[in-house]
């Protein structure tokens, strides 16, 4: 099982469930290391004091903040002093309907796992999981992990309790300054666009989408290992904006209704012939 990143208790009224936090996602990216080109030795990053020009251990490092031009130095111990008191608990503050929580606020997903296998712990965990699942609600709470306090959403997923760290409201930017182009669509344009969307609609089946980048990168690595040449593909040209929106909508709708590729054009047919 994955490593526990935090352990403490989930506090729900007067019921406390001892839990551990483990990641609900895993990193499958192919990672590269920095190497010295001459001898292929793995580069190490080491800390140096800029004024003394000597290597410095992590225990000699403090934190500096620029407060209106004035350097303020804070130590780990001082930072620890402002961590909220109940740092080993996740306090549930309220329950909200899942649909009201826009996913833009969701940051990192974790599983909550019962800590230990005492009957009391397992029953309290299962009770909360069953209750959350039946109510279709999300519990909103806070907890401190490492040196940061997180706002979290806790819900039932696949028979487990999931905890997702959330962004605070002022970490989501306003949409107002985003340019939204020209005129509102006409009713016919909108009806046509919605009809295209409905024709191209399918069930959400995440298993259908593979990380092609990861696969291609692995192939590039294997080719390089065998000293084969690697060709860089030309980027696909950016399509030009359409002159006649209505004609483009109609042609697209004809395509999807006839079971053709939505972007099929007569020019392509002539080009192929």
């Amino acid at each position, binding site marked *: 099982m994955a490593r526990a990143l935090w352990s403490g208790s989930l506090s729900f009224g007067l019921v406390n469930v001892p839990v551990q936090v483990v990641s609900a996602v895993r990193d499958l990216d192919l990672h590269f290391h920095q*190497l010295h080109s001459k001898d292929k030795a793995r580069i190490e990053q080491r800390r140096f004091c800029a004024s003394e020009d000597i290597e410095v251990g992590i225990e000699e490092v403090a934190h500096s*903040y620029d407060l209106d031009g004035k350097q303020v130095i804070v130590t780990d*111990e001082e930072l620890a002093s402002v961590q909220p008191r109940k740092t080993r608990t996740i306090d549930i503050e309220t329950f909200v309907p899942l649909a009201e929580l826009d996913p833009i606020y969701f940051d990192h997903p974790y599983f909550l796992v019962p800590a230990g296998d005492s009957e*009391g712990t397992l029953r309290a965990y299962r009770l909360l999981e069953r209750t959350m699942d039946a109510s279709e609600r999300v519990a909103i709470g806070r907890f401190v992990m490492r040196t940061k306090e997180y706002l979290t959403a806790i819900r039932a997923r696949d028979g487990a309790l999931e905890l997702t760290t959330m962004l*605070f409201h*002022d970490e989501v930017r306003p949409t107002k300054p985003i340019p939204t182009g020209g005129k509102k669509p006409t009713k016919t344009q909108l009806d046509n666009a919605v009809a295209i969307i409905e024709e*191209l609609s399918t069930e959400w089946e995440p298993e259908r989408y593979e990380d092609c*980048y990861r696969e291609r990168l692995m192939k590039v690595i294997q080719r*390089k290992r065998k000293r084969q040449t690697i060709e860089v593909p030309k980027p696909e040209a950016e399509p030009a904006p359409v002159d006649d929106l209505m004609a483009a909508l109609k042609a697209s709708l004809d395509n999807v209704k006839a079971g053709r590729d939505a972007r099929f054009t007569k020019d392509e047919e002539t080009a192929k012939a």
Partner: protein
Amino acid sequence: MAPRSIWNGTITFGLVNVPVKLYTATESKTVHFHEVHARDGAKIEHRRICPKEDKEIDYTDIVRGFEVEPDKYVVLDKDEIKAAAGDRGKVVHITEFVDAQEIDPVFFEKTYFVGSRDDADPYRLLHEALRKSGRAGIGRFTFHDREYLAAIRALDDVIALHTLRFHDELVPVDDVDIASPGKAPSKAEIEMAGKLVSANESSFEADAFDDSYREAVLDLIKRKSKGEAIDPMEQEEPAHGDDLLAALKASL
């Protein structure tokens, strides 16, 4: 202040091409510090050291290697890594649509706002059609030399683009191994707990929750700058009650 865009390209659906720009939708407000040497307050530099030669290495003498077996690396140059990036550096083809509510939020990774690159009409057409249908468009695009799976949907008056996690990046719940209790929670307990949920229910108001820790850290910095002494505090842990039903009743 006009936001700065981070990507230019075209979203296509059918034969309709929408020239767009991407903008960052979220920003971390976590208080960030610079590392300094505690003794003299001097800046800490992270230097790149070759452990074989025990000396600092210039950035131009560094290559990127993938470890294929212990201590054996395949070195790729920038162009070779680019070869895997895909050819969608300028275009997002939306080839299918799904019910936006059907995508579990666990798949959403990072959010960007999509803006129109010109004053033409297709942007609002796409936005309105996504809003009206309640659907999300699925496509792939390349950003910073890697390809992403993305979902676009209507969010307020703009189109939001979420990069999506791939299914194999989610840890299956079976891997987590959650033991079952010997005796399942009783109906009475589940009903009681349900009441506790109802009693504490509210609607979600994002701005009801402030980052109090961030404020506390900023306050600490201000106090420290005035030369105040900082006291470490004691921390406590709650006791774990064993009588579930009694605890639920008392909470209500």
